[in-house]
């Protein structure tokens, strides 16, 4: 056998099969392994090896559950069989062992935990933890009832840049002390159209916060291109406006990127709207 990945898998499978087989069946593992060497087709080898592993598991399970075997007197057919009673018992044990974990599904908290795990798993494929449809529904309700905090909440969790910008503007329009929302959204991605208006609002709302100057510097840097471009850093560093914005940021008496306010809002809305939904807890803490 050479070192091809499929060959390695085959070798590993038959090795596992020999390892799993009970001691009294040890020869059979070697017998199945020897046949693999006679095959040419890698797919056939793989199927054979997988079959060998299956045989080994069956033999091991039979040895564990029903160690006692006997030869039927009279030599009538395949003389060796498990006694019927033992076979039934073995089946019952296997069914019970396989079925018992399913009982956990009856518990709502278990199902909820399972859903969180599944969502976290899909989130690793860049799926949002809270679906866009749920957030849209929430924002729509908030618009109807003039609920600025719920709108801000939806804007914080939503991924669509334009929609969340619109929700953020509505939220701030209704409740001025949510202006920090602009800073959080501006810090996340490339500045959307109208970023200057948001920066102006932030400057009026929190004139001493150096974070606003950093966001201004970010906007200026964006004009120079993207970070992947050649000489991007040098171009940005030479930009006089960028230098002035950064200087102002360093000179500012306060630096607040509003993480505290953000978490406070999420916690508040979660308690009010969907306090028991762990998906939001996970999302908020992430």
């Amino acid at each position, binding site marked *: 056998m050479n070192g091809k990945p499929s060959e390695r898998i085959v070798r590993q499978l038959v090795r596992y099969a020999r390892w799993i087989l009970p001691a009294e069946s040890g020869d059979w593992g070697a017998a*199945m392994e020897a046949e693999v060497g006679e095959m040419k087709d890698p797919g056939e080898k793989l199927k054979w090896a997988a079959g060998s592993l299956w045989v080994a598991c069956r033999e091991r399970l039979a040895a564990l559950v029903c160690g006692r075997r006997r*030869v039927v007197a009279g030599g009538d*057919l395949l003389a060796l069989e498990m006694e019927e009673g033992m076979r039934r018992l073995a089946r019952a044990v296997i069914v019970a062992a396989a079925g018992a974990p399913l009982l956990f599904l009856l518990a709502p908290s278990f199902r909820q935990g399972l859903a969180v795990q599944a969502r976290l798993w899909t989130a690793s494929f860049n799926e949002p933890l809270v679906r866009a449809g749920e957030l849209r529904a929430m924002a729509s309700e908030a618009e109807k009832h003039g609920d600025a905090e719920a709108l801000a909440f939806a804007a914080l969790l939503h991924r669509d840049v334009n929609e969340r910008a619109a929700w953020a503007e509505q939220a701030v329009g209704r409740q001025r002390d949510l202006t920090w929302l602009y800073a959080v959204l501006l810090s996340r991605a490339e500045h959307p159209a109208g970023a200057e208006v948001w920066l102006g609002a932030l400057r009026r709302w929190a004139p001493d916060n150096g974070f606003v100057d950093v966001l201004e510097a970010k906007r200026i840097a964006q004009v120079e291109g993207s970070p992947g471009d050649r000489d991007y850093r040098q171009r940005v560093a030479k930009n006089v406006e960028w230098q002035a914005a950064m200087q102002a940021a360093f000179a500012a008496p306060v630096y607040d990127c509003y993480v505290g306010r953000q978490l406070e809002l999420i916690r508040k809305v979660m308690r009010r709207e969907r306090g028991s939904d762990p998906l939001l807890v996970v999302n908020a803490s992430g």
Partner: protein
Amino acid sequence: MHARVRFSPQTVTLLQALLDSPHDWHYGYDLSQQTGLKSGTLYPILIRLERAGLLAARWQTPSRPGAPPRHLYRLTAAGVRTTRERLRASKKRMSLAPASAAGRA
């Protein structure tokens, strides 16, 4: 307790293949190709037959250096006898089946 005797279609297929040349030794892979049984089905049957004394197994000296020894199988005298009896009985059952069906009708 009474032991249940199992004579599955796959077992019959394998026994028939072995009975075609009862004095020859067969490789597991050849039996698999001959009967169409996958290794996961074939070997549990071989194991059962061997434990029941119906099948003889032996190791063959490797034909080329570095190759592992291969396992060979053939029916024992008891295996040949039991298989023939079984096949005869199943043929008899099959020939009787239409008559009894007609009788019921």
